[in-house]
């Protein structure tokens, strides 16, 4: 296993199974013990060129809870990007002010570009529709905690599989654990062909469906995603698929599910999950969002080299 010290966290593809399990184990330790001073004197630059609530705030909270400090911005309009500064120049400047950069940007590959031009470690907090590796670590942590294992599960991905970066990252990661995968979406939002091919190259059993009918009883986990209006160039195309799925307690009972099914969602939700789900045993999405703290604490501590 490669060391995490000073390592960029760009894509879940860069981590093997042992490295993933190491972070999940470290997250568990972070939940069990307070480490209030281990990042004292360290500065995190939080550069969000795209809106975020959970990711940005949980990174900032994690850094502060470990004794570190945070600088940065929450929208590109208040940075020099608004004056036309290139991303490369922006991160080269910020590098001089911090020990680690957390970057969210609407262009795919932006985190890799930043990592290539600066010496401080870069954590990808979402690059367009591509990757969101720390979300994947917390998704895996949630599945492991609530299902007791990551091995041999059957997982259904539901919603926007074309632009949903959390789906792409999680599907890739779950391939390490022998998962069988159902991709449930309207035809226009199917998983991109090259992603599907990459999964099949790794011998993953993949299925494509347009609804949960007939398959719901096989699923251990449903990973539901929002259909992201902001990713559609054509509003008419968005309207065609808007509200196409709506998970509710009644709906799941009607189609039939396993007793111990767990429903995850990276949030925010709009209309794809009804509030009636919230009080059920299979809703774990709020718990999932809270897991952002131990997981991001683990990643920050490992990358900044203060814990092994």
């Amino acid at each position, binding site marked *: 296993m490669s060391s995490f010290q000073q390592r960029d966290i760009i894509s879940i593809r860069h981590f093997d199974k042992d490295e993933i399990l190491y972070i999940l184990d470290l997250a568990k330790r972070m939940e069990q013990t307070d480490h209030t001073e281990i990042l004292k004197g360290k500065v995190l630059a939080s550069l969000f060129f795209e809106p975020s609530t959970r990711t940005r705030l949980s990174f900032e909270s994690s850094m502060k809870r470990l004794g570190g400090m945070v600088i940065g911005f929450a929208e590109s309009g208040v940075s020099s990007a608004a004056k036309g500064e290139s991303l490369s120049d922006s991160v080269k400047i910020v590098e001089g002010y911090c020990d680690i950069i957390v970057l969210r940007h609407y*262009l*795919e*590959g932006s985190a*890799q570009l930043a990592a290539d031009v600066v010496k401080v470690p870069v954590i990808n907090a979402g690059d367009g529709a591509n990757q969101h590796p720390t979300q994947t670590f917390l998704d895996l942590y949630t599945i492991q905690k609530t299902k007791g294992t990551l091995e041999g599960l059957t997982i259904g991905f539901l919603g926007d599989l074309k632009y949903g970066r959390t789906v792409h990252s999680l599907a890739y990661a779950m391939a390490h654990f022998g998962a069988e995968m159902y991709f449930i979406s309207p035809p226009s939002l199917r998983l991109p062909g090259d992603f599907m091919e990459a999964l099949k190259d790794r011998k993953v059993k993949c299925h494509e469906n347009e609804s949960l009918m007939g398959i719901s009883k096989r699923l251990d986990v449903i990973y539901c995603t929002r259909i992201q209006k902001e990713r559609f160039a054509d509003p008419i195309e968005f309207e065609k698929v808007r509200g196409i799925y709506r998970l509710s307690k009644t709906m799941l009972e009607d189609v039939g599910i396993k007793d111990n099914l767990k429903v995850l969602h990276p949030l925010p939700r709009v209309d794809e999950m009804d509030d009636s789900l919230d009080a059920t045993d299979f809703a774990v999405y709020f718990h999932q969002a809270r897991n952002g703290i131990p997981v991001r604490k683990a990643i920050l501590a490992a990358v900044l080299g203060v814990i092994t």
Partner: protein
Amino acid sequence: MKHLDVAAIKDGSVIDHIGSKSTLKVADILNIQNEEQVVLVGMNLTSKFLKKKGIIKIEGKIIDQKEANKIALIAPNATVNIIKDYEVVKKFKTVIPETIEGMVKCFNPNCVSNHNNIKTKQHVINKNPIRLQCHYCERIMSANDIVLI
């Protein structure tokens, strides 16, 4: 005496066994328009292996393996012959490199390489059939997606 469809050169390089339709693209990559000496380009020549092939002969220029590899993506079967005094003194095949820089446009319109002034970069994840993975956005391109810059 063997008849030559394209005249011989005295000293220089001959790129042979180019897929006929790729000949002009190869010529473009090798930047032949800036050559000062004789350049001969042949297309649709008979070939045992390719049925129709292209050939480019450049007088006064010695192509090395690194430069030859630049054309490997579009002419994977090409061979380079180095000519000295009308004789072949060296012969080698093009090899697809592990990483390709500044040659192929990423097919993903949202890739950062299509928006910032940076050199494109792809990792070759399969040589036959060719599959390239963008260093930045990670999307995987197959032969039909490849557009040269």
